[in-house]
Structures are given as structure tokens and as C-alpha cells.
């Protein structure tokens, strides 16, 4: 596939890998923010190849992992109402709420449907005027334009039976909260490429100035990831810190003005609770008051209080904050597996625990023999 295969070239990847090894005079600690990049780094063997040269710690960039339990419980309640069709991305269905997952709710009769796009949910509402269609809107800035567009379409179609359960999160406040932690080990960030496709990276300058960390926007293929790592190491070695874009084919400084306009027409910045990390100031998006008639939380009232959630055996909060590696959790791969997860990062296809379980437990292919079937991630 054009714009994918070129950046998987094993010869180029090995070349950049060699350059990183030559550049690094001591082990540096980098965090990739995005869960899709976590999987890319493990799948291609980069994490393993750079052992002792660059340590990659994995950030909270898995939107379904950080979606609060209360929101998942509420979605489950909605799915069990006879008049509701609850829709979301497939990833969201297996994440446990306080009692069970949306998949389990569907198995016992809840009306839960997976859609590829929030705009498919708008179409579903149009075709089912007697039902209430709710889209469970999770995701970072990459996804928010799509759900904002769903509101604009529903408005123009004058749909009375479409609403959003909004749990959108913003990446930069989460990066800042990681940098503020007393035990922060992050020396440089690989910024999430597709988030930056939408929002740009100009505002990251505040973080580099305040915390003296290099921030390098990068993509998801092995060559993209390696070029991002190389740029971080160059900056760390030279002591000159800046924001750089190593993903210029898909990212412009100021992002995508049309996408940002659509987003800001529908959403405003709000404080938001992140599962495992707590409330992050300005860490999410909420519907502007103009669109409150499309807010599922206003249209339907929550009917129960959540139970205590995460098993004490699960250290997902530490994993999401990058304090420990998934393999540092005593439950990893024993009492906690993708089939029987204790926490969200083991469930989601982008969670760091699932990435380690999938790619670390087996003989990991070197970059040369890597065959990858997906492009991108959070």
C-alpha cells in the first residue's frame, strides 16, 4: 500500500537503527504516547533491538483504556433500555466496567452494535426513527472530528433520536501530567502522529520550554518510529531541545484547520477523569451548550452507582502512567491475560499489556522479517 510499504523497508529501518546505536552514548528514556505506536514498536522488534540503548516506556495513549468505568457502566445501562441501540467502536466492547463488558451485556440481550464510523451511527438513527441511537464517543483528537461531524449531520437531518455519550480525551494535558509527576523518568516524547494530523504541534512548544524535553512527532511504521527515536536521541545528546516533526507527510504545524473548525464548533475543552490517572485539568472535550440536546447524559439519567472497580491485583494505573512495564505487574500473563483480563490495558488492541502479551511472549521477529497488516494507531 502506497505511503505504508515504503516506511516498512527493512533495509532503511536497519540503517536508522544503526545510526541510533552510534549516536547514543548512554541509555535514554523515551515515552511514546500512543498505543498504536506501542504496538508498532513491539511488533517490529524495535523495543527489543534497542535494549540497553534506548528504553521506551509506554504512555496512556489508549483511549478505551482510559475511559472511566462510570461511562462504561452508563453505556451498559443504555444498551439494556428497550428503546436504545448503543453503538461504538469494536475496541470499546470488551473493556470491563464495574461489573462486566458491553460484550457481556450484548450476550444477555443488550442492543450493542459495532460501527466503523460514528457517521454510520447517524445513518442507523435515520433508518430507525422509532429507536434511540446512542454513539459512545471515545478517542483522542484524531477521532473527535468524526464524532463532531456526526452531531452536525444529525442536526442538519433534524434527528431527534441520535445522541453522543462523550468521553473524548486530549493528549497534551496528559503528557503534562506525566511530566509533573515526582517520579517521572521521561526524557523525551514521541508525539502521536495522527493526533497531530488534526491538532498540529505548535502548542507542544510550551512543554519543551517548561520541562526541557524534546518532543518529536512521529508516525507508526518502523522507519517513521525509528526516525522519531533518532531525532530524540540527537536532541538529548546535544542538549538542544525542541519540537520536531518527523511525520511531515501527514502532519502540518497548525494541524488541519477544517477538522479543528468542525471540532471546535461542537466541543469545548473540559476537565475529564482518566481511568487509572484521575481527573486531568483540560484533559477532555465536552459538548458545547448549543448541542446539549444531543448529549446522552442529559437525555437519559444514570440509574446506578458504580461498584469499586479495578482489581487490587491490577496495576494498570502504573502501566498507563509509564511507571512500570506491563511485565512488571505480578499478574501479567498469569492471572491477567487477554482472555481473562483484570484491567483495560490487557483488553484493548492498543493497550500496553496486550501489546506485551502478543509480541513479547513469543519469539519476536526482527525488523527484516516483519510483516505488518495494519497502519497507524492512537
Amino acid at each position: 500500500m502506497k505511503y505504508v510499504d515504503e516506511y516498512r523497508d527493512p533495509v532503511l529501518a536497519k540503517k536508522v537503527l544503526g545510526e541510533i546505536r552510534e549516536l547514543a552514548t548512554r541509555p535514554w528514556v523515551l515515552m511514546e504516547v500512543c498505543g498504536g505506536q506501542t504496538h508498532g514498536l513491539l511488533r517490529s522488534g524495535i523495543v527489543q533491538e534497542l535494549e540497553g540503548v534506548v528504553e521506551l516506556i509506554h504512555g496512556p495513549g489508549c483511549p478505551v483504556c482510559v475511559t472511566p468505568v462510570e461511562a462504561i457502566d452508563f453505556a451498559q445501562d443504555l444498551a439494556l433500555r428497550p428503546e436504545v441501540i448503543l453503538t461504538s467502536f469494536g475496541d470499546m466492547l470488551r473493556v470491563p466496567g464495574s461489573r462486566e463488558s458491553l460484550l457481556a451485556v450484548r450476550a444477555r440481550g443488550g442492543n450493542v452494535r459495532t460501527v466503523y464510523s460514528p457517521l454510520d451511527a447517524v445513518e442507523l438513527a435515520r433508518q430507525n426513527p422509532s429507536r434511540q441511537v446512542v454513539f459512545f464517543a471515545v478517542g483522542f483528537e484524531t477521532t473527535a472530528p468524526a464524532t463532531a461531524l456526526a452531531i452536525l449531520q444529525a442536526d442538519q437531518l433534524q434527528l431527534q433520536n441520535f445522541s453522543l455519550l462523550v468521553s473524548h480525551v486530549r493528549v497534551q494535558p496528559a503528557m503534562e501530567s506525566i511530566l509533573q509527576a515526582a517520579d517521572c523518568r521521561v526524557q523525551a516524547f514521541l508525539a502521536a502522529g495522527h493526533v497531530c494530523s488534526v491538532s498540529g504541534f505548535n502548542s507542544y512548544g510550551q512543554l519543551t520550554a517548561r520541562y526541557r524535553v524534546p518532543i518529536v512527532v512521529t508516525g507508526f511504521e518502523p522507519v517513521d518510529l525509528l526516525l522519531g527515536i533518532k531525532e530524540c536521541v540527537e536532541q538529548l545528546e546535544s542538549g538542544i531541545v525542541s519540537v520536531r516533526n518527523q511525520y511531515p507527510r501527514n502532519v502540518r504545524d497548525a494541524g488541519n484547520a477544517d477538522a479543528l473548525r468542525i471540532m471546535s464548533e461542537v466541543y469545548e475543552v473540559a476537565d475529564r477523569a482518566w481511568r487509572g490517572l484521575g481527573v486531568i485539568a483540560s484533559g477532555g472535550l465536552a459538548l458545547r451548550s448549543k448541542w446539549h440536546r444531543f448529549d446522552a447524559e442529559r437525555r437519559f439519567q444514570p440509574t446506578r452507582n458504580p461498584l469499586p472497580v479495578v482489581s487490587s491485583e491490577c496495576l494498570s494505573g502504573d502501566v498507563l502512567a509509564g511507571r512500570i512495564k506491563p511485565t512488571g505487574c505480578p499478574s501479567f500473563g498469569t492471572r491477567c491475560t487477554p482472555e481473562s483480563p483484570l484491567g483495560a490495558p490487557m483488553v484493548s488492541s492498543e493497550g500496553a499489556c496486550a501489546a506485551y502479551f502478543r509480541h513479547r511472549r513469543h519469539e519476536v521477529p526482527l525488523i527484516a522479517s516483519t510483516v505488518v497488516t495494519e497502519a497507524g494507531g492512537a
Partner: protein
Amino acid sequence: MCLAVPGKIVRWIDRDPTFARAEVEFGGVRRVCHMACVPDAPEGDYVLVHAGVAITRIDATEAQRVLDDLATLDGVVDLDEELQA
């Protein structure tokens, strides 16, 4: 979650600002995508599609420049090796 796939715009279907749609080809498979965030992208150009919505245009020049830069580096290394030999 932020999975996004590059595709080539084959044919514009609707130019309405909110309902803009085009047929986009992904490695031989065609799909209708929403184009409200890339209203000026011409047919034949590539866009990056996430959750059914094109979120950015792909800059072909920049894409090639990164690869050319790497190729240049290759040349430099080869030259060094030759000099050493």
C-alpha cells in the same frame, strides 16, 4: 484506536460541507469516506482516513523527501566505506 489508513481519492460524490463524501481506494478496495475535513483535496490525491473520515491530506512531496534524505545518507555511508577500504 487512532488507526488511520492512506487511500487515494477516486471520485467525489458530494460536495456539501457537512455531508461531503468521496470514493477512496485502499490497496484495491474502494470505500465511501467522509470528506468534510479535506474539502479541497482533488481526485487522484491521497488522504489519511480514520473512522470513515479523511482527517488530513497526504503531502506527496514531504513523503518522498523523507525517503530521499535516507537514500542520501546511504550514499554518504557507502562513500565513507569506500574511502576506508
